[in-house]
């Protein structure tokens, strides 16, 4: 397992990753850069499966390649020209020096990393402990057990990070809601039909990913990202209410963290200790919590997308310059 040799596929994959990363960072046209980033994300997801990490691959495909690329494509669609300024002489020198320095650092870091042997820690490794106590966690998939039981406190703080991110994005809108963002105009029929077929499929896939997470790769994050895609498609397909603009927005964004905190308060108040689920009902608690998290994660990712749309310019008498479209 831990001494797999490099195959042709690995070599091609690595070559593709480096090429996609290079093009993402250096190609002058923004739209090309973003498409290259999408390719980079897909290749990363393939790399994760090659490295035996199917959970990470699913998350990368849904979140890294999917959601991030959607956010980026939406951003460059509106302004495809790069406002790059002319580069001066000292900047070019800086770029060359920086490139040399980066190459040296990269090679040095790579050498140090490759030198790491199999873990020979002088104590029990965390991986062995997870295997030993998986039975008590309420789920049979080790990654889910780590995320929602053994290290659930990490995940709680991570959900807080998500909520802060979406609140921060909302703060960029005039009244901190999505009311100012115009609903998408009705799409052409063919696209509309596609949207209407695809959106329910995504919802079903999300549900499956959520339930599967307790025994197999999957879980709230992957399900939430897929569901976010479904919500955005519904919005595009003529149902703007899929992503609520104001009143219902914050409760749905916060329901995951609220549920998580309630669980923490309850376990502490009942005397078990903060976040101690107990073996008896851990499985049920984790599934219920994941369902709430999926809703919040989906709404957060969808709301991030919508909140990033430019608010309409205030209706002053002067006609604003036409937007690039």
């Amino acid at each position, binding site marked *: 397992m831990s001494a797999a*040799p490099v195959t042709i596929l690995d070599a091609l994959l690595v070559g593709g990753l480096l090429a996609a990363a290079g093009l993402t*960072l250096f190609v002058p046209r923004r739209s090309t850069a973003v498409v290259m980033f999408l390719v*980079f994300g897909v290749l990363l997801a393939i790399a994760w499966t090659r490295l035996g990490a199917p959970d990470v691959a699913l998350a990368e495909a849904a979140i890294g390649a999917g959601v991030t690329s959607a956010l980026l494509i939406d951003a460059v669609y509106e302004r495809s020209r790069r406002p790059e300024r002319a580069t001066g002489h000292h900047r070019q020198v800086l770029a060359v020096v920086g490139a040399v320095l980066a190459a040296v650092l990269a090679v040095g870091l790579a050498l140090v990393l490759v030198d790491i042997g199999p873990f020979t820690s002088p104590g029990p490794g965390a991986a062995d402990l997870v295997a030993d106590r998986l039975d008590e966690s309420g789920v049979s998939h080790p990654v889910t057990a780590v995320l929602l039981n053994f290290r659930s406190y990490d995940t709680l703080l991570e959900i807080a990070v998500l909520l802060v991110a979406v609140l921060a994005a909302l703060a960029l809108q005039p009244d901190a809601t999505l009311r100012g963002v115009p609903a998408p105009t009705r799409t052409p029929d063919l696209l509309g039909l596609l949207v209407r077929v695809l959106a329910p499929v995504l919802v079903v896939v999300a549900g499956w990913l959520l339930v599967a997470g307790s025994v197999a790769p999957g879980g709230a994050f992957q399900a939430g990202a897929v569901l976010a895609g479904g919500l955005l498609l519904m919005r595009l397909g003529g149902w703007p209410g899929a992503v609520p603009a104001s009143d219902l927005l914050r409760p749905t964004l916060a329901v995951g963290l609220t549920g998580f905190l309630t669980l923490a308060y309850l376990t502490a108040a009942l005397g078990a200790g903060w976040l101690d689920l107990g073996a008896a009902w851990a499985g049920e608690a984790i599934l219920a919590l994941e369902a709430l998290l999926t809703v919040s994660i989906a709404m957060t990712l969808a709301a991030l997308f919508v909140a*990033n749309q430019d608010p309409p310019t205030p209706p002053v008498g002067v006609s604003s310059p036409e937007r690039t479209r």
Partner: protein
Amino acid sequence: MTREELFLAVGAGLAVLGAARLLLTRDLLTRVLALNVASGGVLMILVALALRGGGPDGPDPVLHALVLTGIVITVSVTGFAIGLVRRIEGDLTEGGRR
């Protein structure tokens, strides 16, 4: 060279490449992309290390869980960063001069 060694080295390369581009460019969207490439590199190191630290049941699930957390944090940051980039550049183009 084993597969883990290959991916450890490539992860290092991507991390440094992304960090360097982030520091050396002025284009804001490129900086967002560079941040994501750097993050992908660091996470690749973690996933490759998980293979090293794995037992008979497969790679180390703790590191996989950490990487999932890292991916979610990166997308949160990216979402907000793109929002800021769009506002800043919107100001630049709408404000007319500079």
